[in-house]
């Protein structure tokens, strides 16, 4: 690592301030709270949801998110009939603009190899048990398209505003390896 840094900085190809700025962007600005805002808005604004399902890149841009790792966004909606889950079997493509940097498990060989062939088993290990009549849809991100899952809105959240809804949307629910549930104090 040091050798590469010495060459890149020493030859003037890379500004060390740029390296730090990039890292801090993903440590402090870009993360799953962005995606949670997208989901909360989709749950409360039917027009936004329709646009999100038709042209997710444009819809997400209206909230100020876009760019690297989300140039071509696709949103897929969980329903009683279909449960979606995302993966990149060939590397670790992940919707950075709405979820930030992927967790280690998403990048692991264990997840990448298995979720396409044993998706129900993988989901149940994540605590997502689905009835047999629910179709499981796995989206392998083999191009520059980046998927995010719109999880199902839990019952008991009627009348909640976007901010309160966004607070209960987890990262895993937007990957498809989690469900959104009410906080224990309310359920």
């Amino acid at each position, binding site marked *: 690592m040091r050798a*590469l840094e010495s060459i890149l900085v020493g030859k003037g190809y890379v500004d060390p301030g*740029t390296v730090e700025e990039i890292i801090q962007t993903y440590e402090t600005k870009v993360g799953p709270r962005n995606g949670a805002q997208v989901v909360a808005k989709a749950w409360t604004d039917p027009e936004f949801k329709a646009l999100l399902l038709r042209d997710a890149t444009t819809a997400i841009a209206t909230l100020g998110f876009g760019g690297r790792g989300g140039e071509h966004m696709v949103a897929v909606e969980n329903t009683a009939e279909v449960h979606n889950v995302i993966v990149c079997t060939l590397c670790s493509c992940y919707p950075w603009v709405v979820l930030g940097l992927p967790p280690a498990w998403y990048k692991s060989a264990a997840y990448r190899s298995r979720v396409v062939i044993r998706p129900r088993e993988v989901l149940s290990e994540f605590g997502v048990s689905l009835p047999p009549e629910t179709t499981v849809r796995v989206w392998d991100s083999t191009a520059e398209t980046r998927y995010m899952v719109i999880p199902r809105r839990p019952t008991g959240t009627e009348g909640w505003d976007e901010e309160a809804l966004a607070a209960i949307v987890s990262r895993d629910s937007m990957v498809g390896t989690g469900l959104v549930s009410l906080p224990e104090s309310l359920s």
Partner: protein
Amino acid sequence: MNGAQDMGGMMGFGPIVREENEPFFHAPWERKAMGLTLAAGTTGMWSLDHARAARESLPPGEYLTSPYYGIWLKALATTMVNAGLATEREVATGVIETPPVPVKRILRPEEVAGALAKGWPASRPEPHPAPFRVGDTVRTRIMNPVHHTRLPRYARGKTGVIETVHGVHVFPDSHAQGLGENPQWLFSVCFTGEELWGADAEPGTRVSVEAWESYLEPVA
């Protein structure tokens, strides 16, 4: 290429290990490796397709036993050498022995937000009408190229249905080889679990991949 990166359907990697309150990085070197790799990419001297090709060119044993950002760094060294930014010895030792070459861009810290917000879109103008429509049945070609490709082994020679037409995108197979962008129509193709995995498939499961037009042939 049929490298270790193409993992879909492999078995034996053990349980999926999750970490509560996982930090962004597990060591300072990982943090720096991420930033350096992205920053070096903004020189414009190679594309993400080149970087992916370099990562998956690692021998399988090495790929599977290297930490994630370790793979990134090994590929970064490769792309730097391939692009003429450094020699093999320089990336190994860190000692500068040759003068810098001109690069397309040196991103300044104040330009980072704008560059990341713009991103690197892969969409291109449409050279001809899309060869398939939503609902068409297609078969993925049986292919085993020695170079970079984005059609996973588990999805080759399989029959599926066009689910989405994504427009025209840079074709990674040629782009990663330095043969130009060769933009092609890109589709989501949906397969049943049974088509991919036979009787061993879990019931009620479907898998989609993104496939460029040259990966596909029509099924009458």
